[in-house]
């Protein structure tokens, strides 16, 4: 009997191709996972010994970072990083949402698409350029502020925060704007039909409906802020002291590039330790915010 119904001779070779492709995709997927696992393992192997030698408590809560005298406390850097990131998000998130609403709802489409292109461009500018801008434009302004308050002039935490705000705004705007634009018009219509004004409708119906996207923008913003090194080094003054807005501050990310070249022995190992702390920080923030995100979606 020749070919019956649904079977063909090609069947076998087709399924072989399918199987091979499946294996290729599996390898690609595994490669990403393996990268993450390798990094994690490597960070722990290289960072942990120093932390152990210095002492976990001494390392995380020690207030003095003085490698020459074997003092390796990174509490000032941890606090500076937390304060800088938190302050930057606190300002950038509401500002970013307002800009996103403006772009998506309040101005005509053509103007909005021009502005959006510009903002997307901002998101791609190398951070060292932001650092330059900060050093030229923001730091002198802060100097004036410091002088008028009778403080010594220097790079400071506030300058770093301002630079971080500017750096994470494009990301937050762009992601929030996309999210707001994706909300069906029907929510706004329903709200208008209940007798709300346009602005009430946007802020009480449309924006809440876009909250999962907005939280996603926030996650990206936090990630960028806490991980940023170059721009921050250029404006923050980099003294490893307890954070104050108008005094020099060193963020977690800063010690590694500043001291890497001349460090050796326990000092260099301690820098690995900082890397591990930073790594754990970013992991935890991502996991927590993603959980929040999932909750928001449900």
């Amino acid at each position: 009997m020749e070919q019956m119904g649904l079977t063909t001779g090609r069947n076998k070779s087709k399924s072989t191709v399918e199987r091979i492709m499946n294996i290729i995709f599996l390898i690609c997927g595994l490669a990403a996972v393996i990268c993450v696992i390798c990094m994690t393992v490597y960070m722990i192997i290289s960072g942990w010994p120093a932390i152990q030698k210095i002492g976990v408590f001494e390392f995380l809560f020690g207030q003095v970072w003085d490698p020459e005298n074997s003092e390796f406390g990174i509490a000032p850097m941890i606090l500076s990083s937390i304060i800088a990131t938190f302050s930057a998000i606190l300002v950038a998130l509401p500002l970013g949402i307002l800009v996103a609403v403006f772009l998506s709802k309040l101005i005509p489409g053509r103007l909005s698409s021009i502005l959006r292109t510009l903002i997307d461009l901002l998101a791609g500018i190398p951070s060292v350029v932001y650092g330059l801008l900060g050093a030229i434009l923001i730091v002198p302004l802060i100097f004036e502020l410091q002088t008028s308050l009778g403080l010594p002039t220097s790079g400071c935490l506030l300058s770093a925060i301002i630079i971080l705000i500017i750096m994470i705004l494009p990301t937050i705007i762009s992601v929030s704007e996309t999210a707001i634009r994706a909300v069906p018009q029907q929510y706004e219509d329903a709200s208008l039909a209940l007798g709300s004004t346009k602005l009430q409708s946007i802020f009480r119906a449309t924006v809440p409906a876009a909250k999962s996207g907005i939280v996603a923008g926030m996650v990206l913003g936090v990630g960028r802020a806490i991980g940023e090194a170059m721009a921050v080094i250029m404006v923050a003054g980099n003294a490893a002291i307890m954070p104050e807005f108008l005094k020099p501050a060193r963020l977690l990310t800063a010690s590694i590039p500043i001291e890497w070249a001349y460090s050796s022995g326990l000092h260099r190992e301690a820098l690995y330790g900082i890397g591990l702390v930073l790594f754990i920080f970013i992991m935890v923030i991502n996991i927590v915010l993603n959980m929040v995100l999932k909750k928001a979606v449900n």
Partner: protein
Amino acid sequence: MNEVETQNKVKIHTKNLDLFYGDVHALKDVNLDIQSHNVTALIGPSGCGKSTYLKTLNRMNDTIDGVKITGDVFLDNENVYGKGVDVTILRKKVGMVFQSPNPFPMSIYDNITYGPRMHGVKKRIELDEIVEKSLKGAAIWDEVKDRMKKSALSLSGGQQQRLCIARALATQPDVLLMDEPTSALDPISTTKIEELIAELKKNYSIVIVTHNMQQAARISDDTAFFLLGELIENHKTETIFSSPQDKRTEDYITGRFG
């Protein structure tokens, strides 16, 4: 106001209403009276202007770019397009239910209180009262009373639409506009909504756009037939369906075009 007085009273009076979308003349000199405590059905083929007309009654066309409207719509003798009219108050008095159910992605409770909160009701007790009354009014109270905090999106399509009706009732309107409210629903849900409309007309004046001729015949007291932006004729529903005056109406309701 007693029953006799509320009958046969003109709720909405439309006079020489023209509407343009840019160059398109979408409504042509429409003159139509809508009776109080009646169901008025607007029928006609797609693109005939019936939905556009419906939206002139709560000025939802205002939000569309390039719309120009001339003529007058009087709600209780007050010109809806008059100077200094606050559309938010108009829309509070003239509620609207859309074609596909569009509850907000919030809890059932928050959906209902959305309108009242916007109009300044803040007290929890008052809000609770409004919620119960509105949900009972839309015949959905028994189905949702134990899950007020659940997302409105967890309801079925038919329930969502009744929730949307309840949401519209919550601002205590006089008039309810319905833009093909059952076209996205299954037959059982449709029946429920139709029964609800029959109940609602005791307290509200209802204008409903429908593509479904049987539905118009079943639920409406008056029917207006639109074609190409013109109001061809309007009458008691029995009259329209038994002895239409205009040949075009007859052709449409007998299914010769549409």
